């Protein structure tokens, strides 16, 4: 079990912790996220990243920040789970990439970039992964409509006479 007090001693008092059901969540300021994740990997045995995801808090009641980025960590040997969360804001949402720590986060970070436009600095190959390269919007942001803006029908038509 990783203790909050130990982490606070190392990384400062502005780390906080909460628990819901059996999920333990650690909220870390964006400036310290790389140091905290590196420390959690090296000294506390969290050797696997299960997933990285983001949440757009545009329409969420009482939200202070625009985006939350969530790292789901797992210690394979003990089975302990920890959710590390941080917040970033427009106009320049940026986080350090943790590709140097875990190779498995390659596509996860690319997906977050593709869907939300959050840039991971230091990622070796940060480009769109699910959407076409020509796409200009970030579809999972809350200000993007469900049906899109007409991109899905922006193609030439092949009629029977032409085929």
């Amino acid at each position: 079990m990783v203790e909050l007090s130990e982490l606070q001693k190392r990384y400062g008092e502005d780390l906080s912790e909460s628990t819901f059901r059996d999920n333990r969540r650690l909220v870390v300021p964006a400036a310290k996220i790389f140091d905290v994740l590196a420390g959690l990997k090296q000294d506390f045995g969290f050797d696997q990243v299960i997933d990285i995801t983001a949440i757009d808090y545009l329409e969420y009641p009482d939200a202070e920040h625009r985006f939350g980025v969530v790292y789901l960590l797992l210690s394979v040997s003990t089975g302990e789970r920890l959710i590390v969360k941080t917040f970033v804001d427009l106009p320049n949402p940026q986080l350090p990439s943790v590709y140097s720590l875990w190779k498995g986060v390659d596509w996860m970070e690319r997906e977050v970039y593709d869907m939300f436009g959050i840039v991971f600095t230091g990622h070796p190959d940060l480009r769109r992964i699910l959407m076409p390269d020509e796409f200009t919007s970030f579809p999972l942001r809350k200000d993007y409509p469900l049906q899109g803006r007409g991109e899905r029908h922006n193609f030439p038509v092949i009629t029977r006479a032409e085929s």
Partner: protein
Amino acid sequence: MAVGLPENVFMTTLDAAANWARSNSLWPMPFATACCGIELMATAASRHDMARFGAEVMRFSPRQCDLLVVAGRVVMKMLPVLQRIWLQMPEPKWCISMGACACTGGVFDTYAVVQGVDRFIPVDVYVPGCPPRPEQLLAAVIDLQDKIKGGGTLMGREFAAETTPRGPAPFDEAELRRLRGLPILNERISSGPNLILPGDVPMGQYSDVTGRQGGIRG
């Protein structure tokens, strides 16, 4: 023809004989993208056995096929691939749109999914269901066989000749627009379906309510 024929000789037109042969040896090209692809496999596999209808020779090269089975939803990134495969198939060719997603977009009314492949390529038979049962796909193959036997086969050029109106243009469209005070469309957009070149309209900035880019449906 007064000459008597032996009992095992039939008289027919060459067209009808060719259609009969074509309809009973369809070679499908499985364009299987999603769940319907598994049902397509089930149709071809042990229990349902599409070979009973002469359509079991799945060829994965479009140049050897004459029946495109679009099984599953087609999304923005995949549509150019679908169109290219359709163009690569030799004529005469037919298309079955299998499943709700391929026919109309189905439950996926989202930014990425094309709302029906018939907006962009011609379709002969629609199979509803999510996914359709193998029996339904077999029924569609039988329907298509009836269509080929009954309606005959048309090449694209023949189809164009039969459906294009001849004679002088009824009026000057640009003049009419000027009289009514309507905006005159860009020549390139108004004159043909296939002339919007890729890259002309940047994605994400172009909005089209109907999704139609001029031109007729196939």
